[in-house]
């Protein structure tokens, strides 16, 4: 209480000192501020120190109120809650903070009236209510005092005196002149009990009293059987005083007026009159009050900080930035804790905060509440609901006959379908108690307890949903499904087949060194050309006006004009067309890589019209769509592996000065001047007009075996010896759009159908696979690839070779495949 008053005094002092300031120039107010700064600072510190000391001494209640006040004081200048919160949190800054706030308030207050500031401050805060509560406390203590009054007026006076003494002691601080330096506050002492002075004279020592029993504080009944009751300082027995009988006692009490205030002192063995203090203590104890008369349980609370809120801050210093930004230090500490929690070093709410176990609890408290599902909880199987025959009065048809009852009785307990017999009672009243109740309960409990229950987590994935949604092959007809025609006659592996553009004639070349031409519809061999070398590739010229068959055979490439298959006019024209180049053969210098030669007479009679001799064995021959140019591949002939021949002029070009890698296949683009070259791993697309590389397709396979281009020219498929079939969308990417790996063995040949959205592949496993490969005109729609048919074991495996070549019929959805088993087959 006095501290608070002192504080109020200091606060009041600050504005008064600053009153003249406004009359000065504004700039000069700065020094005033600094002065003010230096002046009040120690005060606050002192008061704070004191408050700390006090806190230790005083009750916790008061401490709390102190804390509140402290908060309030800090609150003073900051209206917004954020900074408030921050300051509460920020431990480090609390130390020096009050100083500044005081300063600021003192500086700001300069211009304002003191009273205004006071009233404003009080209006800002809930200081009023606090003051009220103090007053109430005081009132309460007064009441308590009044009660005391009834007991002892003297004591009351003493109390009041004491109080006044205290008050007067502290009074000087209260009524101190305002001009007095505030430093004197340091001299203030906390309230102390004032004991009566002890004069240290000889007789002041009570121990010198005679006849003092020295046994100390021992139960005196120990001496009950002795004549003495103790020993004095000299070791002599203190004899028990003579005891009078009860009558004497009574008489003496009647005589002695002090009897009622005397008590028996067992140590001395006689009655002793109680002093006034002792009586007071007794009285207080009787009254249920604190025995110590001077103890004041309702001490005035002492303001640690002032309860008055200053409107103006003592310091003009701007709010430091750290007030507005989150504290890094604190964040660091929090993170430290968070990290510790995460790492498990701190287990929240484990060590310190163990809730004490209740001593007693209601065993059946939550018995009827549904228990929360545990992870491993498995619900008990439900009991079956009762049925009609369990009724006390079941319909007649449920009642068992005599035989059934006998049968039921004879049956083993385990074999009985039901463990009861339906019984009929006239009324519910007649139903006896159920005899098996306990047993059934017991069995049920056994069931629940012993039955092994396992939760099976079944993956509810519909296998259908994993399969990509593809149209049914039935909707994608027509595609070949069954063997229709076989072409028998070859005596060696049939390496290559080709159907002429009219779709009537099938040419095949094989390792029996023959080229055969077959009637497609009947399987009849119409012509056989016997050559000197193995035939590796045959290809009909795509031009319907020129019937010419190109044949790759050993080191040569031959051109055959078959007789009798076509009209004489067409045959004649074809022959002229093929041979026309011999006329200008002399004009152009002979290309050493390929020489065009006339066949021998016998060969000519067979139908062979031109031979092109090359340096290395020719593996493939393929036509340009117009039927004038055709290209041959001789993989061994390094740089001249790929040659492009012009039929009309009998000229040969070498399109690539240098070829990268071993060329496997070449293809002309079906409608653009493009040329595709497949090496072992890559497919390169060249522009023949500009003579440049357009694109390199990365197949991702190890060894490309075959290639075909979609008739629209935007898609390309390759087959590889490592069983893969890759579909490239040339507009999309240089990587395969789809890689299909359905074959068991190396893929030998792939082919697109010219008209139908079909493509096929054949492999060494002797099987042919047919796919629906729809290419949409819409550029945004990716090609649709659906496997529609696997023709298994089309060709027998001979020396680990199966189906060697597939070819589509140009107009019908018929597939022609040739194999190592010397056969050619047509599927429709």
């Amino acid at each position: 209480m006095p501290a608070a008053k002192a504080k109020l005094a200091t606060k009041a002092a600050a504005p008064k000192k600053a009153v003249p300031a406004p009359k000065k120039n504004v700039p000069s107010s700065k020094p005033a501020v600094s002065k003010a700064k230096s002046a009040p600072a120690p005060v606050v510190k002192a008061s704070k120190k004191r408050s700390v000391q006090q806190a230790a001494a005083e009750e916790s209640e008061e401490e709390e109120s102190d804390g509140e006040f402290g908060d309030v004081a800090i609150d003073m200048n900051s209206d917004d809650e954020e900074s408030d919160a921050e300051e509460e949190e920020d431990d480090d800054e609390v130390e020096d903070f009050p100083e500044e706030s005081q300063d600021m308030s003192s500086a700001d207050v300069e211009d304002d009236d003191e009273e205004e500031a006071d009233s404003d401050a009080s209006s800002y805060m809930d200081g009023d209510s606090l003051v009220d509560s103090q007053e109430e406390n005081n009132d309460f203590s007064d009441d308590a005092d009044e009660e005391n009054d009834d007991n002892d007026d003297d004591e009351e006076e003493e109390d009041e005196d004491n109080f006044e003494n205290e008050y007067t002691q502290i009074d000087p601080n209260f009524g101190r002149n305002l001009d007095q330096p505030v430093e004197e506050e340091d001299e203030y002492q906390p309230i102390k009990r004032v004991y009566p002075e002890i004069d240290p004279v000889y007789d002041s020592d009570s121990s010198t009293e005679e006849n003092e029993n020295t046994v100390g504080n021992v139960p005196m009944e120990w001496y009950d059987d002795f004549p003495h009751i103790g020993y004095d300082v000299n070791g002599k027995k203190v004899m028990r005083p003579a005891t009078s009988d009860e009558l004497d006692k009574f008489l003496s009490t009647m005589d002695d007026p002090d009897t009622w205030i005397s008590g028996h002192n067992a140590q001395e063995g006689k009655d002793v009159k109680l002093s006034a203090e002792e009586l007071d203590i007794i009285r207080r104890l009787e009254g249920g009050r604190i025995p110590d008369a001077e103890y004041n349980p309702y001490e005035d609370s002492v303001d640690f900080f002032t309860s008055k809120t200053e409107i103006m801050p003592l310091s003009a210093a701007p709010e430091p930035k750290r007030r507005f930004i989150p504290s890094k230090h604190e964040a660091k500490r929090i993170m430290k804790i968070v990290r510790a929690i995460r790492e498990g070093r701190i287990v929240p709410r484990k060590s310190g905060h163990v809730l004490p176990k209740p001593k007693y609890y209601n065993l059946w408290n939550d018995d009827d509440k549904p228990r929360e599902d545990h992870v491993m909880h498995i619900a008990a199987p439900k009991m079956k609901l009762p049925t009609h025959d369990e009724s006390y009065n079941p319909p007649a048809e449920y009642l068992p006959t005599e035989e059934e009852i006998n049968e039921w009785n004879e049956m083993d307990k385990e074999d009985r379908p039901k463990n009861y017999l339906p019984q009929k009672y006239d009324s519910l009243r007649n139903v006896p108690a159920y005899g098996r109740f306990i047993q059934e309960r017991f069995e049920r409990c056994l069931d629940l307890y012993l039955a092994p229950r396992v939760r099976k987590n079944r993956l509810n994935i519909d296998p259908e949903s994993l399969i990509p949604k593809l149209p049914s092959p039935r909707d994608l007809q027509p595609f070949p499904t069954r063997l229709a025609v076989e072409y028998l006659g070859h005596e060696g592996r049939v390496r290559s087949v080709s159907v002429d553009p009219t779709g009537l004639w099938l040419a095949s070349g094989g390792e029996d060194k023959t080229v055969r031409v077959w009637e497609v519809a009947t399987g009849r061999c119409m012509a056989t050309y016997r050559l000197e070398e193995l035939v590796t590739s045959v290809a009909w010229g795509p031009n319907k006006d020129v019937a010419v068959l190109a044949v790759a055979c050993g080191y040569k490439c031959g051109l055959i004009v078959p007789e009798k298959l076509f009209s004489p006019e067409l045959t004649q024209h074809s022959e002229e067309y093929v041979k026309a180049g011999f006329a200008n053969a002399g004009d152009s210098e002979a290309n050493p890589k390929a020489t065009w030669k006339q066949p021998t007479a016998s060969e000519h009679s067979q139908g062979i019209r031109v031979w092109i001799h090359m340096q290395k064995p020719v593996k493939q021959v393929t036509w340009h769509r117009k039927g004038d140019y055709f290209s041959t591949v001789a993989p061994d002939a390094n740089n001249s592996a790929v040659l492009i021949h012009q039929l009309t002029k009998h000229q040969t070009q070498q399109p690539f000065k240098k070829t990268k890698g071993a060329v496997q296949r070449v293809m002309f683009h079906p409608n653009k001047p493009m040329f595709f070259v497949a090496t072992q791993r890559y497919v390169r697309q060249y522009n023949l007009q500009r003579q440049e590389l357009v694109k390199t397709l990365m197949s991702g396979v190890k060894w490309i075996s075959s290639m075909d281009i979609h008739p629209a020219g935007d898609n390309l498929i390759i087959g590889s010896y490592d069983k893969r079939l890759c579909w490239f969308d040339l507009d999309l990417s240089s990587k395969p759009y789809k890689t299909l790996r359905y074959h068991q063995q190396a893929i030998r040949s792939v082919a697109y159908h010219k008209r139908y959205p079909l493509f096929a592949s054949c492999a060494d496993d002797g099987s042919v696979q047919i796919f629906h490969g729809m290419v949409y005109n819409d550029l945004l729609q990716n090609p649709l690839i659906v496997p529609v048919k696997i023709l298994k074991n089309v060709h027998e495996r001979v020396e680990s070779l199966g189906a060697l070549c597939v070819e589509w019929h140009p107009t019908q959805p018929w597939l022609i495949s040739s194999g190592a088993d010397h056969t050619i087959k047509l599927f429709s």
Partner: protein
Amino acid sequence: MDSLADGPQVQVRFVTQQRQYAIPETPIQTPARLKRYGLSQIINLILQNEGEKQRPFDFLIDGEFLRTSLQEYLDDKGLSTENIVTIEYVESMLPPTPLSSYEHDDWVSAVQIHAQGGFLSGSYDNHVRLWNKQAECLQVFSGHTGPVKAVQWLTSEDETGTFLSGAMDQSILAWEYSLLDNQHSLLYECKGHTGAVESISLNATGDRFASGSTDATIKVWSTKVPKVSDPMEDAGKSRKRAKTSAKDDRVYKAPLVTLTAHTGPVSAVVFNPTAKDTLYSGGWDHSVRMWDIESHVNVWTKNCEKVVHALDYSAHAGLLASGHSDPVVRLWDPRVDDSSVVKQTFSGHQGWVSSVAWSPESAYLLASASYDGLIKVWDIRAKGALYTLVHAKGSKKALALDWERDIMLSGGEDNQMKIHQVKSNMDSTTSSN
């Protein structure tokens, strides 16, 4: 009749589409153990046919021929014997019997029978042969330079006759022969096709014939024998032809009409024998077309999904039968305008159907030859095949088929032309009538 009363009985109702054998449609109690023969006897009994007049009948239940006893049939189908069973009866066709086999040098790709008894066969050895019933080769006609794909009788008397042959050498040759002096001569050559001639058909009046070719055209020609060659359109062609065929003095004939609507090879042409100007054609473009050759109009087009290999028209049934590049025989009704509607299909073959032939006398019987080497006889009232004849074993193809009177003629990859006797009692009834 005592035996009839034994065993379980079934109520049956007999119906027929043949008027001459119609009986009242009242249900009759019959023993369930009866088979075809027993039921046939019942019909004959009701018709009061006796002795010579007895007719064998076949019985259809739900479109299937009864080949077991009634009881077994009902058991098989899980039908009750309580209900009335409706049985359709048709006059039975006796199983065809193989008569003889005619050895050729090469595949037989075309056969035709004349009503008077001459058999023509075209072969892959470029020859046309004339045979008699005794399997004797009467004459061999060699003039073609390619396999003969089609033969067509024009006229035939006892000892003389004329016929046409078309071949892969793109020509149609008209021949005249006489057995008296064992002579034959080439009447004329029809020139104009630029692809193999696949099929030839003569119209009802015998003054026009049509040919279908792999060059996607149908050409209609007159049967009149020209005295001199028709002028050819292209001078260059004639020059070339002069060069290639300067050896003979053939009379060349130009087509009257060229019908070009097919977009693929034309594999079959057949005239409607009842309407002289109506021509049906089928080709690799999956279409069956009807033409009016007088106005050169493609009257209608019906499409299916498969290549048409063979066509035949039945005057009795008024239906077209077609063989395709699948094992199915299809029936078309030319009177229905709806395109691409197949009236009926017959499946049973294992390979492509290379040739079809209607029975010359019945509106219900039909035969087909297939690449599986089998010839199947179908009754269009039944689902399955009536009879299956083996033309060639070991998956040798049957390529050609013709059916005239009681003779069924077939040729195939096994270099054989085979004759089957088809004893349908109907012709005897028609002759007796």
